[in-house]
């Protein structure tokens, strides 16, 4: 019996577990395989929808589904978070009841979360459009009251999930105030610690002119250290200050707290992961996917999805005695709405540089289509469409052998 534990039932964990359950349904029925997802959340939320809740007043409830309704037959949902993942001794411990579950293989898919503790004052001052449907709904309540002044949006610290989302917030805020005929009274400022409006120059060269055209101010290289909510002042690490009236910043993120101090995670709790075969480095039977990894790519749903497919296919091959093995191509595809029904995409792989994609209505519709098929895709639906869409980047067949385990030579912070 192969016992597979999936820690985290978000986008990556669900796609992994459901894909494996579909492929191995006979083995599951005959008792040769067991798949368990551990997750204490009652709901799963469609996170890209947070922006529409915060800046267009969309109903936050429309972004939620019961997690229990998203697992296929053959997958057992244990409705608890894990407080410990002991890879060496192959067991997890659940948080509330302290139960111990053994595994043969484990997939860590615990995502990322905002870490307000890094920037004093931010949690009191910020209207968070990025962390939950409920917080986004509160941000919209605040936004509706803004009639004048300086609205500052952007990046409070790195890393964070969905790199284009702060840019989207700037464009959507502009659209909001234009539609309300308040744009002349409201100054929109985009704040970033990077050197340009988007870290990658190709994307920057596409969107910077839009900032200019829409009269959105860009402040670069601002390393936010703290916020003074009473004086309504942002303070940088270098001592610069910036006044604001309303704040919509994306906080820096960390990995799940339970991994801090584990030898298989870095100091911020990101799991040390092989960028191709997604093994937790040094462990043949442990994998990490999605935002939880320390991979040198964007933290986004597409990556979580394609990584889940790679790991599921490798386990299926192994179970079926096939020598076929697959690896992740590093494919990223983050949509970036530029307002007024236009969008671009940030697309690339480990080997291919970021593509130049002009904003269009067609791209915007693609983004909308993704939302339509999101819930089915978590259950392994529409995989033919993803396979067709991503083509050679979907995954890569490999003959690469895993190198013998060794300690990393350099510290990766």
């Amino acid at each position, binding site marked *: 019996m192969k016992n597979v534990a999936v820690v985290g039932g978000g986008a990556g964990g669900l796609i992994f577990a459901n894909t494996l359950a579909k492929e191995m349904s006979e083995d599951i029925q005959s008792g040769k395989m067991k798949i368990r997802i551990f997750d204490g959340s009652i709901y799963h939320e469609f996170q890209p929808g947070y922006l529409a809740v915060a800046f267009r007043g969309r109903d936050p409830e429309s972004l939620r589904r019961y997690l229990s309704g998203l697992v296929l037959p053959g997958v057992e949902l244990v409705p608890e978070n894990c407080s410990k993942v002991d890879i060496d001794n192959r067991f997890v411990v659940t948080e509330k009841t302290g139960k111990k579950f053994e595994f043969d293989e484990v997939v860590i898919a615990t995502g990322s979360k905002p870490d307000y503790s*890094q920037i004093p004052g931010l949690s009191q001052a910020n209207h968070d459009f990025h962390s939950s449907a409920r917080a986004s709904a509160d941000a919209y309540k605040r936004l509706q009251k803004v009639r004048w002044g300086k609205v500052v949006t952007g990046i409070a*610290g*790195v*890393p964070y999930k969905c*790199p284009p989302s702060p840019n989207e917030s700037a464009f959507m805020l502009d659209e909001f105030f234009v539609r309300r005929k308040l744009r002349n009274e409201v100054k929109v400022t985009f704040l970033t*610690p*990077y*050197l340009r409006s988007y*870290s*990658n*120059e190709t994307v920057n060269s596409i969107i910077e002119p839009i900032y200019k055209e829409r009269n959105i101010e860009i402040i*670069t*290289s601002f*390393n936010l250290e703290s916020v003074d909510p009473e004086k309504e002042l942002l303070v940088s*690490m*270098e*001592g610069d200050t910036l006044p604001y009236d309303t704040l919509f910043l994306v906080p*820096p993120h960390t990995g799940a707290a339970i991994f801090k101090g584990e030898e298989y995670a870095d100091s*911020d709790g990101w799991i040390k992961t092989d*960028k191709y075969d997604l093994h937790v480095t040094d462990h043949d039977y442990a994998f990490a996917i999605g935002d939880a990894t320390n991979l*040198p*790519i*964007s933290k986004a749903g597409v990556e979580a999805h394609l990584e889940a497919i790679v790991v599921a296919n490798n386990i299926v091959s192994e179970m079926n005695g096939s020598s076929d093995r697959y690896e992740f191509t590093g494919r*990223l595809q983050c949509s970036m709405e530029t307002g007024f029904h236009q969008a671009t995409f*940030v697309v*690339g792989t*480990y080997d291919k*540089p*970021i593509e130049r994609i002009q904003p269009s209505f067609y791209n915007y519709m693609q983004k909308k289509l993704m939302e339509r098929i999101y819930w089915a895709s978590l259950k392994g639906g529409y995989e033919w469409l993803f396979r067709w869409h991503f083509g050679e980047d979907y995954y890569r067949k490999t003959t690469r052998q895993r190198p013998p385990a060794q300690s*990393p030579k*350099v*510290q*990766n*912070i």
Partner: protein
Amino acid sequence: MAKTLVDSRGTACPGPITDLLRAYRKASNGDVIELLATDPGVKADAKAWCQRTNNEVLSTVEKNGVITVEIKIMGKKG
């Protein structure tokens, strides 16, 4: 004074500057960050970033496709 080694090899988007920014938040004046990268954009970006934040590039060395940038942190306020 501490030295932090930041391995950003293979990073393209959002890029090595993300790893530099993470290390910078934890660093103090006088510390040195040694950034390893394969993205050629890192040379110009690290230089521009230091100019804007009042930090200093001590050296930039390229060997076998790996660029090593040594940065002295001196721009943080008191």
